[in-house]
């Protein structure tokens, strides 16, 4: 039992428990703050998995940008906790839960993992072997950022360019929706 394995397990269990805490909060602000803690823990787990850039991006983008928007909206609307209530569980939801638990357990067992690894082997990727993708740039495994960048800008070039369109469309859409009737609504600044 080495230190990184131990801390990985502790962080994972804490993240799962905190997510349980999160979905039962009454105050939206508490839920958002717990979610930020979960994301920070996940960033630490990414770091232990040696995905250094993913860890940094998880905090910068997720905990530092997306959650800021959530917190802003919660604080702007100032939702009091009484407006929140738990809904009842319908039969359809029960079935959904059963199916999702079944799928999750199925994927979590050896059968599911066997499927995962055979799928990968059929693609020609053996487990634990370092393959730098289809491109011609090779960096040592310690240079995580450069490896990610090489994969992003060579293998996933089109996705990268399309993401910019997606973000642009999202921003324009968000402004159109949120700013719609601000002329009639003289909000206090």
């Amino acid at each position, binding site marked *: 039992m080495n230190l990184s394995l131990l801390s990985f397990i502790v962080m994972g269990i804490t993240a799962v428990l905190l997510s349980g805490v999160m979905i039962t909060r009454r105050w939206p602000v508490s839920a958002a703050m717990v979610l930020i803690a979960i994301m920070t823990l996940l960033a630490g787990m990414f770091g232990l998995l040696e995905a250094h850039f993913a860890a940094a991006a998880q905090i910068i983008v997720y905990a530092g940008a997306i959650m800021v928007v959530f*917190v802003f909206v919660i604080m702007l609307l100032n939702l009091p906790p009484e407006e929140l209530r738990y809904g009842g569980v319908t039969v359809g939801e029960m079935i959904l839960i059963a199916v999702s638990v079944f799928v999750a357990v199925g994927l979590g067992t050896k059968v599911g993992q066997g499927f995962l690894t055979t799928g990968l082997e059929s693609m020609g990727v053996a487990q634990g072997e370092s393959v730098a993708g289809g491109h011609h740039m090779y960096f040592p495994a310690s240079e995580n950022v450069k490896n990610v960048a090489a994969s992003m800008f060579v293998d996933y070039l089109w996705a990268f360019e399309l993401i910019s369109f997606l973000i642009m469309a999202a921003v324009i859409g968000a402004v159109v929706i949120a700013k719609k009737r601000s002329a009639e609504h003289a909000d206090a600044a």
Partner: protein
Amino acid sequence: MEGSLGAVAQFLDTNIGLVASIGKIALALVIALQVAPIMVWVERRQAAFIQRRIGPNRVGLFGFRLFGLGQPLADTIKLLFKEDFIPQQANKFFYVLAPILPAVIGLVAIQGIPLGKEIIVAGHTIDLQPVNLNAGFLYLFAMSALGVYGVALAGWSSNNKYALLGGLRASAQMISYEIAMGLALLPMVFIYGTLDLQGMIAAQSDSLLFGFLPNWGIFLSPISFVLFVVTMFAETNRLPFDLAEGEAELVAGFLVEYGSMRWSLFFLGEYAMMFTLSALTTCVFLGGYEIPWLPHAQLVTLLTPIFTAEPATWVAAAIGLGVLIVKVAAFMFLFVQARFTLPRFRYDQLMRVGWVYMLPVALLNLVVMALIVGFLRLT
């Protein structure tokens, strides 16, 4: 006795990485904790100097006045003994949590700063950067991104409309300038080709620019430097960008319901962040801990005849730390000078400066630098 000493030496030898790491963290923490009280004293003295007053010069130590340097200590003790109350309407948990957040983030962020190149102890080379990730200074950006929440939470949990408005304004300001900050450092990344601060410092000291200037980032990309310093002021909520705490319009912004030690924890975090960002600027633009025209390796070579091989690296590291602190102190002086000479922005002006001027300038700077570096290096 002999045996236990041997066991200690054995333990130190096998766990040198852990012990050295804790030592580095402790050093950085001590520096960070000293910054706030000393800077408060410096600010008060300098404000007095600018406004032709005397300022705090009475409190001394052991009967010596020492220009009032006992003042920070007295302030700390006074703050400890102040009444610590929680307003009735406040959300207790977040009210208590909010000041701890910026303090912790400030103290953790400072660990990403290289305090020196390396020292050699008993054959082990120890890198003097407490936290050295492959993602480099993005670690500092990540920490400064989390800094938004302390302010926003303080405003929200106080349940006071001035505090809420101040907190939201402060966080909106911080996120607005974070973008320009990230974009300002991008050219430096592709000039040096690394995210690692140690690598950047090494790249700045290994050659001379035009044969006589040190190869510092400030000469390679001056616009980035100016942009970064401006965003640094905004990011730390300092004047002329401190209108979140504007006494005249928002009583004291998100700080209004805070007193005693909680109040000072906000300042501990703010000054630690100021130090961290100043040190980041120093490392990226001003050669970090390196003495101009005298790279670290050369310094060690010069010192080796005087001391012996290993102690020479220790002395060089101490000199390097001194140089770093001198450079950072110059920035801190700039912070204080700006605070008492520049008027405060209005909020709409602040947002306008951030989004309409800083951001396009940062983008243009990025494009121009990319083209220049491209033509110089790639053709």
